[in-house]
């Protein structure tokens, strides 16, 4: 009996010390980490919709999105931003998608992924003398109906050895853009200049059609 209780108590003491140390460090680092994630998200939103100055979070038909305006007065919509979630090979890949008002992709930015190093992580590979990852660049200016990787008969060049990752990004982007388009069209009249109006048109019905 003594052989069980004594080591157990000692182990518990070690556990307490380790837990305490982790608790202290976590409480110190958690706010900084959250801050950095938010900053990264904002940077991504600004990167995919460079013309926009003011960003307003909105919901239409249960879909959350951000409307970007070209000036402080909200006089003209520069485009929309949605976050796409795609099930990749080993993680859920989060992509921030910038869309123009006629629903072509302005740009995408991958904000989270934990794919296989050396294979799936190549969605973030930047070629020499270029600013952005080559895989991501392919999405620029594409209509949402044309977001398919080459393995599925589309035009997007997928990453060698990481078809699942490539496909996850392409499909989730297409899906998110499509959902936003459907819900914005449903919430008629289409989004006008003022964000207040869009909130009035916020219908909480599930989207029909327009999805795969």
């Amino acid at each position: 009996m003594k052989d069980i209780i004594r080591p157990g108590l000692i182990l518990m003491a070690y556990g307490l010390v380790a837990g305490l140390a982790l608790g202290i460090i976590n409480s110190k680092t958690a706010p900084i980490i959250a801050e950095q994630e938010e900053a990264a998200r904002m940077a991504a939103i600004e990167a995919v919709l460079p013309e926009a100055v003011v960003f307003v979070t909105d919901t239409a038909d249960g879909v959350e999105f951000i409307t970007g305006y070209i000036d402080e007065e909200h006089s003209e919509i520069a485009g929309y931003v949605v976050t796409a979630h795609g099930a990749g090979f080993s993680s859920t890949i989060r992509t921030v998608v910038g869309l123009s008002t006629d629903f072509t992709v302005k740009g995408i930015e991958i904000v989270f992924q934990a794919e296989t190093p050396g294979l799936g992580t190549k969605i973030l590979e930047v070629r020499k003398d270029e600013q952005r990852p080559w895989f991501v660049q392919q999405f620029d200016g594409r209509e949402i109906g044309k977001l398919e990787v080459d393995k599925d008969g589309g035009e997007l060049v997928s990453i060698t050895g990481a078809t699942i990752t490539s496909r996850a990004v392409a499909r989730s982007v297409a899906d998110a853009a499509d959902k936003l388009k459907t819900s914005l069209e449903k919430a008629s009249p289409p989004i006008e200049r003022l964000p207040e109006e869009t909130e009035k048109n916020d219908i909480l019905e599930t989207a029909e059609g327009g999805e795969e």
Partner: protein
Amino acid sequence: MSKNNLFKDFSKGILIENPVLVLGLGLCPALAVTSSAVNGLGMGVAATFVLLMSNIIVSLIKPLVPPKIRIPIFILVIATFVTIVKLVMAAYTPALSEALGIFIPLIVVNCMILGRAEAFASKHGPLRSTADALGMGLGFSLTLVLLGAFRELIGEGSIFGHNLMGSSYQPALLMILPPGAFLSLGMMVALSRWILEKTTPKGGEC
């Protein structure tokens, strides 16, 4: 304790008792992450840091560790350090944390670290344990970088992202996929055996 002894503790990890090639420790990360030289370096550096910290702590607390529960305590120490490294890196060096990503949590299951805690740090003082950790860490890192560089060269025609083979080179994708890891590691083990056999006098113990 002489200087000579300390140097021996340090240098044995590089080849004679190389953790991956000779002791067969830490094979999982060695195979999984070495699809490029940079990845190998990242894993090597991160693992070396945790190994160093855990070796020092284990050698310091060894009088307070009952033999029966030493393994769970070592694991606890290692896991705590890995989590601390992960949190601190995410908070203060987000770019590095992003680049190393999955390697950090993987260090917990790197049996090289538990192996050294059990085989060396729990039997020797902090000074010798530090030398052992640095040597083993260096051996581990060197092996991973070489393995990564070789696989990257054949599988992509580049090393550390610099193209070496010219644009006409058709990369052998197999080398950056899992089978390539086993093939390359096998070749490296054979090569290290050959070198060891050449350098050690016949019939002598190493």
